[in-house]
């Protein structure tokens, strides 16, 4: 009995952690390179989820929906940076002013996106059944769709990590997040890389949204909650550190899973408690510099 409980918590933690890791890596790369704390991140997650639902209900397989959603999300992120944030950067007198202004603008974008979604889809819960059968493992039954989501989340995390550490573009992204001026001196076109990072962040958000729609009911108001979680994870892992976001995502996932086992409504309380303690004890985050 106790083993089944632990197993349930671990599996739940892995699944939540995987999703948290993806959304936080997205937020982290956007902040790390473009220096924008993107509050509208959760709205892209929400769009990813509802778009997957909408396509699914017109007969498109959710994974195929992802193939449509990813390029679309990249374009949205890239264009948002090119049209709004880059201009904002050009007219902001200092880096600090830019970071403040950019966050305010992202609040605005959050409301715009949330209301567009509300106009399209209303505010009802949407859900669909996807791989709705279970396998038995060590005396507990695990829904297959959750395992599927976990596998996809792990694959995406590993691919993203390999992209950052192995590819030329990935290395330039890491360099730009560590020292933007030095990266420019090396010949990195910093505005282009920032726009690409913004696009990649949106892609990760859209993937997370699609995965969420496969296991939970979704609606047009879920965005902000995920933004808050992503910010908590990024602070927990260390601002701008992608491995930190991955680690923080899984830690928060496990804690959320354990607390939810007692009472789901307490998970947010637990997250805020963690962040309060962390800011007092280790304000730079677990892997922060």
């Amino acid at each position, binding site marked *: 009995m106790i083993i089944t409980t632990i197993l349930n918590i671990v599996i739940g933690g892995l699944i939540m952690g995987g999703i948290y890791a993806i959304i936080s890596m997205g937020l982290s790369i956007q902040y790390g390179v473009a220096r924008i704390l993107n509050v509208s991140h959760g709205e892209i997650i929400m769009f990813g989820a509802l778009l997957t639902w909408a396509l699914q209900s017109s007969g498109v397989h959710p994974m195929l929906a992802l193939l449509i959603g990813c390029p679309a999300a990249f374009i949205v992120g890239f264009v948002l940076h090119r049209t709004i944030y880059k201009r904002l950067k050009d007219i902001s007198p200092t880096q600090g002013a830019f970071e403040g202004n950019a966050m305010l603008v992202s609040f605005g974008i959050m409301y715009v996106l949330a209301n567009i979604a509300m106009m399209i889809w209303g505010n009802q819960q949407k859900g669909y059944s996807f791989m709705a059968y279970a396998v038995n493992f060590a005396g507990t039954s695990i829904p297959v769709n959750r395992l599927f989501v976990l596998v996809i989340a792990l694959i995406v995390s590993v691919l993203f990590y390999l992209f950052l550490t192995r590819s030329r573009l990935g290395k330039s992204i890491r360099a730009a997040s560590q020292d933007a001026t030095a990266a*420019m001196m090396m010949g*990195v076109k910093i505005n282009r890389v920032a726009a690409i990072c913004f696009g990649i962040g949106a892609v990760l958000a859209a993937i997370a949204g699609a995965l969420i729609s496969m296991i939970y009911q979704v609606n047009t108001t879920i965005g902000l909650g995920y933004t808050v979680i992503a910010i908590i994870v990024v602070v927990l892992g260390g601002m701008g550190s992608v491995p930190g976001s991955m680690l923080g995502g899984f830690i928060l996932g496990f804690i959320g899973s354990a607390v939810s086992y007692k009472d789901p409504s307490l998970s947010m309380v637990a997250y805020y408690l963690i962040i309060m303690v962390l800011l007092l004890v280790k304000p730079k985050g677990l892997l922060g510099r």
Partner: protein
Amino acid sequence: MTMLEVSNINCFYGNVQVLWDVSLKVEQAEIVALLGANGAGKTTLLNTITGLMRPKSGHVRFMGESLDNIPSHAILERGIAYLPEGGRLFPEMTIRENLEMGAYPMSLWKHRKENMERVFELFPKLKERQKQLACTLSGGEKQMLAMARGLMSNPKCCLFDELSYGLAPIVVTEVFNIVKSLREQGITVLLVEQNVHQTMEIADRAYVLENGRIVLDGQCCDLVNDDYIKKAYLGL
């Protein structure tokens, strides 16, 4: 042949003029020192040469071609490597990755493996420790890595900003020996320094920048006997 020619540069930060009618010339395979106190405008001049800043008036020419409208990454590809003050390594990247970043522009990226082998010959210690993170290196090793990263673009001309800053005297000698070996390989060096004594020993010529103006220039062997230099910079 004249490698680098700066003519009549005037530079501003906002409304404040920091360089006044600055001109200098660096011949091929020469080590030229740019001396001056803090705030004299030395780094601004290097930033202007590498296209990170643009002058209000005046021109920069490299191997006879104008750099006035060339973006900074293209200036790097033409063969000017810039080593900023303090090295500015990427602390959370390995030695190898830092070196790769030195060959980032596409035309250089293709040759990064050969260039890395060449650079490792000059800095064998870095080869042994190529998987180590840059933030774990000592001050001297960091400066070596910064030089190595600069050389990854296979430059014809190197601009070094305060190479000796914060280094132990014995490490300064080691670093300056490498600068001398670059001259032997035909690489032109413009060396910005505050360590006037040791710089005069390795440089061929020197310019002295004060409050944004070139106040003195000449062969180092003449300058060390100059009364003004002796008094203001050598403390004699």
